[in-house]
C-alpha cells in the first residue's frame, strides 16, 4: 500500500493506482475528457492536471497517467491548477465549440470569453475511439496519423478498414462528437447527433456535410461514396 496526501487528506491506495483514481475515491472532482474507465490511461486532454510536490519544485502532471508515489503531496484545485484548466477549456471552446460536453465543462468552470480565432473542429484527438477500438473491440481499425497540426484519426490510407465491424463504439465513447453531428454550417450548429435527427439525414449530400467518421451512417445507413 502507498500513502499519499491529497488536498491535505492522507489516503492509502494500492500500488499502481493513478492520482485520478485516488482523488476520485476521496470524492474530489477532476474534470476529464480523454479518460474513460476500462481504457488505458492516455493523458491527451490535460484537463485532469493536478499539482504535485511543494514549493519551487512543485509541478503539474496529468492525474490520469501519474501513479501514486509514497508520501506524494497532491493538490487537485490549487490556483495554478485552476488557471491552467481554465486556459485549456478556453482553448477547447475555441476549437470545438459545438460539443455539448465541452460547452458544459466550460460553463461549469466559468469560462466567459474565448480570445482565440474561432475554429469549428470536430475532434479534440483525445484518442478514446482509438483506444476503444483497440482495447475493447479488439479491432484496431482506426489510429492516429500525422503529427502536430496535421495529426488526425482515421483508417490506414483512408480506405474502409477490413477489420472495422461498424460497431459504433468509437462514436459512442467520443466526448466531442457523442451528440455532435452538426448542422451543415458549423457556426449554426445545434448539438444533435445522427441517431437523434428526425427525420434522419437520408440524403447522401447532407451526410457528406456531417462531420461523421462512420460510413455507412450508423443511424440511417446512408453510404458515403
Amino acid at each position, binding site marked *: 500500500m502507498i500513502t499519499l496526501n491529497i488536498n491535505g487528506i492522507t489516503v492509502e491506495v494500492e500500488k499502481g493506482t493513478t492520482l485520478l483514481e485516488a482523488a476520485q475515491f476521496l470524492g474530489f472532482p477532476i474534470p476529464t475528457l480523454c479518460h474513460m474507465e476500462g481504457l488505458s490511461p492516455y*493523458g491527451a486532454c490535460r484537463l485532469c492536471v493536478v499539482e504535485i510536490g511543494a514549493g519551487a519544485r512543485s509541478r503539474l502532471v*496529468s492525474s490520469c497517467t501519474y501513479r501514486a508515489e509514497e508520501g506524494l503531496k497532491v493538490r487537485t484545485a490549487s490556483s495554478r491548477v485552476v*488557471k491552467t484548466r481554465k486556459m485549456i477549456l478556453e482553448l477547447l471552446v475555441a476549437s470545438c465549440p459545438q460539443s455539448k460536453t465541452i460547452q458544459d465543462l466550460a460553463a461549469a468552470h466559468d469560462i466567459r470569453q474565448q480570445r482565440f480565432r474561432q475554429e469549428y473542429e470536430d475532434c479534440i*484527438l483525445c484518442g478514446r475511439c482509438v483506444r476503444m477500438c483497440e482495447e475493447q473491440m479488439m479491432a484496431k481499425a482506426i*489510429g492516429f496519423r500525422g*503529427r*502536430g497540426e496535421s495529426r488526425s484519426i482515421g483508417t490506414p490510407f483512408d480506405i474502409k478498414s477490413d477489420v472495422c465491424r461498424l460497431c459504433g463504439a468509437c462514436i459512442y465513447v467520443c466526448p466531442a462528437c457523442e451528440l455532435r453531428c452538426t448542422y451543415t454550417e458549423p457556426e449554426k450548429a445545434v448539438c444533435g447527433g445522427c441517431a437523434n435527427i428526425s427525420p434522419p439525414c437520408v440524403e447522401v449530400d447532407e451526410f457528406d456535410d456531417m462531420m461523421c467518421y462512420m460510413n455507412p451512417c450508423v443511424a440511417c445507413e446512408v453510404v458515403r461514396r
Partner: protein
Amino acid sequence: MPRLSTIGELEQLRRRIRDRVGQQRPCVTVCAGTACQASGANDVQRVIKRHLIERDLVDQVLLRVTGCHGFCEMGPFVVQEPQDAFYPKITTKDVPAIVDAAVLGETLPDLLYRDPITDVPCQCLDDIRFFAGQQRTLLGRNQRLDPIRLFGYLAEGGYEALARVLERYTPEQIIDEVKRSGLRGRGGAGFPTAEKWDVARRQESGEKYVVCNADEGDPGAYMDRSILEGNPHSVIEGMIIGGLAMGASEGFVFVRHEYPLAIKHLLIALRLAREYGLLGEDILGTGRDFDINIVKSAGAFVCGEETALIRTIEGAVGEPRQRPPFPTESGINGKPTCINNVETWANIPIVIARGGDEFARIGTPTSTGTKVFSVVGKIRNTGLVEVPMGTSIKEIVYDIGGGPLEGSRIKAIQIGGPSGGCIPHWRFDLPIDYDSLKEAGAMMGSGGMIVMDDKTCMVDVAKYFMGFLKDESCGKCFTCRKGTQRLWELLDDITEGRGTLAHLDLLEALGQTVTDSTMCGLGQSAANPVLSTLRYFRGEYERHVIDKRCDAQVCRGLTGAPCQAACPVGTEAWRYAALIARGEYEEAYRAIREPNPFPSVCARVCDHKCEERCRLGASGEDPLALRALKRFITDTVDPRLYQAERYANPVLAGKKVAIVGAGPAGLTTAHHLSLQGVKTTVFEAEDRAGGMLVSGIPGFRLPRDVLNKEIDALIDENVTLSCGTALGRDFTIDSLFASGFDAVFLALGAHRSRRMNIDGEDLTGVYPSIEFLKSWNLRGEVLAKGRVGVIGGGNSAIDAARVAVRQEGVSEVTIFYRRTRHEMPAFAEEIEGALEEGVKLELLTSPVTVHGEDGRMTTVEFIVNELGDVDTSGRRRPVPKAGSEKRVPLDTLVVAIGEQSVDDGADVTEGIHVKNGAVVVDKRTLETGRPGVFAGGDFATGPNTVIDAIAAGRRAAAVIERYLQGESLVAPVEPLLPTAYVEPVASSGAADDRIGRVEIPVQPAEKRRRLFTEVEATVTAEAAVREARRCLRCDLEFTSCPEAEGVLPETSRGHR
C-alpha cells in the same frame, strides 16, 4: 587482419601503428565533413589524390581525409602538417602549390588564413583566433584521424579506455570514475550521467539496453553529426564501456535518416570494430559481449525525446509517455534502458583515459568538461566551437566567433534549439553552464547557438520557432498541439499588424499553460522562444503592437517599402523616386514636402536612413541615392507650388501654444499647429531662428540662404517668432501659463558640450565644440589658430575640424578618437570629406592632460589605446596602453565628445526631470511630468539627427492638438504602408539601365579647403532620372493599378 583475441594484442597493434606514424611524412589534411563537402571538399580531395599519383608523391606526402574540424565558414580548407598551416576557402587550382609546399616543408603565405582585424597571415592553427580560444578535446581529434579507418583512432589512444576497463574495472568502479568526473548529459537537461548509469545498473533484469541518442533535430545544430562523422569509434567505445558498467549487452544508435554520411561512417566503424574483436561476442577475448545496432529515425523532432525514442525503437509511433517510470527502470520492451547523447558517449573514453578527477578540473564545479556549440547565424565565423563549460557567451561570440557581420550589431543569441531561449547582448557576460542558462530563461539544449543582429526581428524569431514546434509537436497533448498552434497564430497577428496589447498578455498566459500542462520535454519547453523573447524584448513586441513598426524590417505587413519605413517622418521615398523616373517633378516635390517642412535642409544634411535600408543595397548593389534625388527636386521645383492644406477646427482656433526653441523640432511643431489654426509663439534664445541647423551645421554643408528661405516660408500669420528671449532668463514655464498659453512645447536642443574632466581643460585655447561652432556660425569669430586638435569621433567633431581647416591662421587640423575609424559615429561621407580636405585622423588615442603656459594651452598629453573587451554597445572598449603616453604640441583644442541638453541632476522646473543629460518624456506622447508641458527633439533625446527632430516636431504637433481638444494623447496607429499607386516606367532594355549609383558632384578638395561655399552640387536631370530608374519599387507589392484591375495583360498599359 586477424581478430584481436587479447588485450595484449590490441596494445601490440597500437605500438606497430604508432611506430609507423612515428616516421613522419608531411601530411595534407582535407576536411570532408558535410559542410565542407557541400562547399567543394570532395573535388579538392580528388584533385590532391590525382596530383599525388601523377607526380609520384604518394610515398612522400600523406593525404588524410577527415571529418569536421569545426571552421565550416572557411570550407573547403586544407591543413598542412607538421606546420599546421591553415589554407581556407581553397579551390582545386591551389592544390599543386599546396602539395609542393608540403613536400618542401614550406608554407604558402598567400593562401594562409588572415586575421580579419589585423590582416596578418596566421602561420599556424594556434595563431587563428577561432582555434586559439577553444579547448578542443573532442573536436581536436577529428583533424588527426580518418573516420573510415580504425588505425588513426588507435594511434590517438583509441580503445585504451576500453582495454583498461576490461582489465581492471568493476562496474561500480566505472560508474565511480564517471561520477568523479562530474559529467552531465550533453543532450540538454544536464542530468548527472553517473547517477543515471547507477540506477540502470541496480535494476535486476536480465536484459538491459544502452542507447545513443543521435536524433539531433534542432535548427542550426550539428555537433552530434560532426562527432559521428569524424570520430565514430569514440562513440562506440563510450557505449561499450557504458554497457559494461550497466550490465547491458546490446546497444542502439538512434540516428537521423537525414545524416547519411554519419550513418555510413558509423556502419563502417561498427564493421571494423567487430572484425577486430572490439565489439560483438567475446570482446578482446574477455568473454564479455556487447553489440550495437543502428536504428534510423525518420526525422520527427519529437523522437529525440527519450520516451518517444523508445517507442520508435520498439516499432510504434513516436509519442512520449508519462515519466515515471523512467527509461532506466522501464525502457525498450519494459527493460531498463540508458539513453545518452552522442557527445556524452564520446566523452566517456576521455573520462576513463584521463581519470575522473582530471576531467572534473575542466569547466566549473557544477558543469565539468568541454561542450561543443554550433555557432551559426549573423556572425563572422560560423562553425563548431568547443570550449570549457563556464566560458562566457561574449568570448564565444566576439573572440572565437569573430563578432558581428559588417555594419551590424549583435542583439541576442538563441541557445538550446527551438525550445531553448534567447539571451540578450547585455547578458553576454553570462558563463555558459547548465545552471546559469536555466536561470537566464534558456537552456543548454544540445548546444545550438544562433546569433542574431539588429536586422533580426525577435517577434519573427519567436514565430519561426513556434512554426517549427507546431509542426513537430507529436500532437498527443492537447495543450502542446493546440497551444503551439495558437501561440503561432498570436505571433502571426502581431507580425501582420493585427496585434494588440491583449495579445501579449494572452501569449504570456498561454505560454505558461503550455509549459505547465504538457507531458514531455518538448511541450514543457515549447513556449520558451515566446516567453524568453517577451522577457527580454518586450519593447520590441510593444513596437509591433502599439506603434505598428518592425524596426528590423522583417515583418512584411509592418514594413511596407523599407525606405519609407526607415524614415522617421515616413517620407514615401519610393514615390518621389518613381515620379522622378516619370519626369513628374512637381508631384515628386509634393511627396517630399508633405511630411517634411524642411525638404531642402534634409536634401543636404539628412543622414538618409532610407538609403541604409534600401533593398538595392541589401542585394549587393549600391543603394539608391535618395538624398541626391531629393536635392535635385528641391533645387529644381519652386517651393511656392506647394500649398499646405489648412484645416478649420473650431475647437483649436484661438488656442495658444508656446514653443521654446526655434530649431527644426520647434519650427515643425509651430508649422503643423498653424495649419490647424492654433496660434503659436516660438521663443528663441539666439538672435535668429534655426537652432542647430544654423549654429551647429557649417554653411558649406547647408548654405544659409537655403536655410533661411525654408524657415521664412514656415513663419505665417499664426506663428510669432520671438528671438533673443530665453527660458529661465526672460520667462518661466509658470509665466507662460500665466500669460494665457494653453500648452508649452520645450525643444531647446542639446547645447552643452560634455566635459572631458581632465587637467587643464579650462586653459585658454580649449573650446567645447558647440562654443567653437557657434562662434563661427553665428558671429563669424575665429577661435582656432595654429595647430588644431579635435577630440571626438561624432559629427560635431568632423564639423569642427572642417570649419577649423578652412579658417585663417590654422596650419593643420587633427582629429583624435579613442576607438578605430570603424567605430566612429560620424557619417562616413563626412569623415571622407574631412580627410580629403587635409584633416588628419589619429585613432586609438585619448587625451590625458592639457598642459599650458601662462594660462594658455601649449601641448596635450595623449595615451594610446588598445581594443579590449566588448562593452554593452557591442563595440570593443578602448583600454589605455601603459607607458604609451605622448605629448603633441597644439595651439587649439576643440572638445567634441558629445552634447547634452541640461546638466545632470538639474531639474528645469517642477515636474520636469532630467536623466543622462536629457529631459525625461514619454516616448509616445512626449509628455513631461507636468500636464500641458511637452518636450522633444535633442532636448529629450540628446544629440540626434535633423530628421529625428522634425519627426519629434510632427509628433508634438499631433499630440498637442489632441491635448487641446481634450482627447486621449495616444491615438491608434496603423502600419505605414504604401498607398498611392505610381505606374512604373517601362524599361528601355538598353544597357545603360544597369548603370551604377549616380556620383554626387562635389567641389575639388584643394579648392574647397579654403572656401565656405557649398561642397556638394546637384545632379543633372538626366542623371537623376537614370538614378531614379534603378529603384526596385518595393511599394508595388502593396499597391495595384486601379485601372488595370480586371483588364487582360495584353491591353494593360504596361504592354502598350
